[in-house]
């Protein structure tokens, strides 16, 4: 049975409280909560996470839906004594054993002819998806960050990869150096510690 909740038009913390009431009363196995802003999406998802639900969200503008399914082995009665979220995000946990990190430090592939090199890099990035689930994370540093900004020939491809759940990290120092912080359109801005940690966690690193 799915419990449907319309929490649109409610100011925070009401959407969370509405969801809480439903969980406390009905212990539904499946729950859909409609909200009208992204903050409520995060708050409701986070709350349901503490009660053993796995959540996904969709929507845009002022209409969002959080869909929550009670995870295997969990019961809604379990009182959410919250831990701060895990120190390592889900993508970094043990399921990365087969994961490939692609380290992109330039916007062109190889030396010789830059025109050709740029074309090859576009083709490379667009073809990366063929790795399927083995692809884990793309890291962009130095001139490579220019592939993540407005006007990049692979921007749509990268945004699609991000939607598919591949992680994209973009070096903040590099964006800042090129004065491109405002132009970045995809991925999480990151720092060297995160990059080094990613390289350490990856099972295979590919640098085109």
């Amino acid at each position, binding site marked *: 049975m799915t419990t449907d909740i319309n929490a649109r038009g409610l100011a925070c913390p009401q959407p969370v409280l509405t969801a809480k009431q439903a969980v406390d009363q009905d212990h539904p196995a499946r729950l859909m909560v409609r909200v009208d802003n992204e903050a409520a999406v995060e708050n409701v998802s986070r709350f349901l996470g*503490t009660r053993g639900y796995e959540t996904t969200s969709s929507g845009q503008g002022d209409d969002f839906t959080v869909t929550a399914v009670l995870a295997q082995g969990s019961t809604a009665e379990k009182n959410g004594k919250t831990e701060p979220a895990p*120190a390592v995000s889900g993508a970094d946990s043990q399921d990365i054993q087969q994961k490939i990190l692609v380290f992109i430090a330039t916007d062109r592939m190889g030396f010789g002819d830059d025109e050709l090199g740029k074309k090859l890099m576009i083709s490379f990035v667009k073809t990366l998806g063929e790795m399927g689930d083995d692809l884990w994370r793309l890291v962009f540093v130095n001139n490579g960050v220019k592939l993540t900004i407005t006007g990049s020939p692979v921007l749509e491809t990268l945004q699609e990869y991000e939607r598919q759940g591949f992680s994209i990290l973009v070096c903040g120092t590099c964006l800042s150096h090129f004065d491109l912080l405002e132009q970045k359109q995809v991925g999480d801005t990151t*720092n060297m510690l995160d990059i080094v940690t990613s390289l350490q966690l990856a099972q295979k690193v590919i640098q085109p």
Partner: protein
Amino acid sequence: MKGLSIPTDKHVLVGMGTADDAGVYQVSPDLALIQTVDFFTPIVDDPYDFGRIAAANALSDVYAMGGVPKTAMNLVAFPLGKMDPKVLRDILAGGLHVLEKSGTVLLGGHSIEDDELKYGLSVTGFVHPDKILANQGLRPGDDLILTKPLGTGIMNTAVKAGLASSEQIRDITELMAALNREAAAVMTGFPVTACTDVTGFGLLGHLAEMIAGTRVGVTVFSDKVPLISGVLEFAGMGMVPGGAFRNRKFRENMVSTASRVSPVLRDILFDPQTSGGLLMGCPQDHSQALLDALYRQGVADAAVIGRVTDTGPGMMAIEY
């Protein structure tokens, strides 16, 4: 204010051009006036506490500029006929109590009838023109010191949700009503390079203002940031106010977050604060002495929460 012509003259030391906490106007070679105004709708149920908090909040901008508050005027919007006049009396009494503690005199005020209750103050303070502490001025190698724990926005959301205990409500009320007077007095005895108070934009929002357009960046040690007891739990269960989310969206291009920093903690760093603490930069070789002096004056939650760097100008790197 974009596109409007702002009158000014040569005595304006800090004006509209920067995102500073207050304006500063020089009246003589050794005296400048600090002027600020702040008012808002009630954030706690008790009128007297609301008055105390509104006054501490308004006074804080003077402290954040390195000054001493001297005079104040009340600003009141009150729903006459709909609300017991005793409520207003209690609010003003709370405000006066804090003004008195700060050594500030009340010169007058103005009230209007309004559907929604609002209270605040305009405050004027003194500062020596050479001792003004602007938002910007951080130097590579400075330690960043914060004087109050974070999380009033999240805690107030939990209060609205009926989830906070009476003890927690009392604690945050006292925290919000606490003056930044002691912290400011200690600060002026040290070579502090820049200062602001943490309010609506959250810690990272105000830190962003301190470094935007400058040649310095900052590293924030997220595990060293003092937090109000219970805030991690409430943020973890979805009690994050929309303001924190907007603050994060607005500044996310300036932030790089280590993956070990939980989203919950990151949201707390953007949580809008009411009457938050002072955030200051101090050369490393003085910061321990500054901290010790703060502790001696009872500013018990003060902590070094980050470091100013010369890498990644305009960037905030959040470490754990």
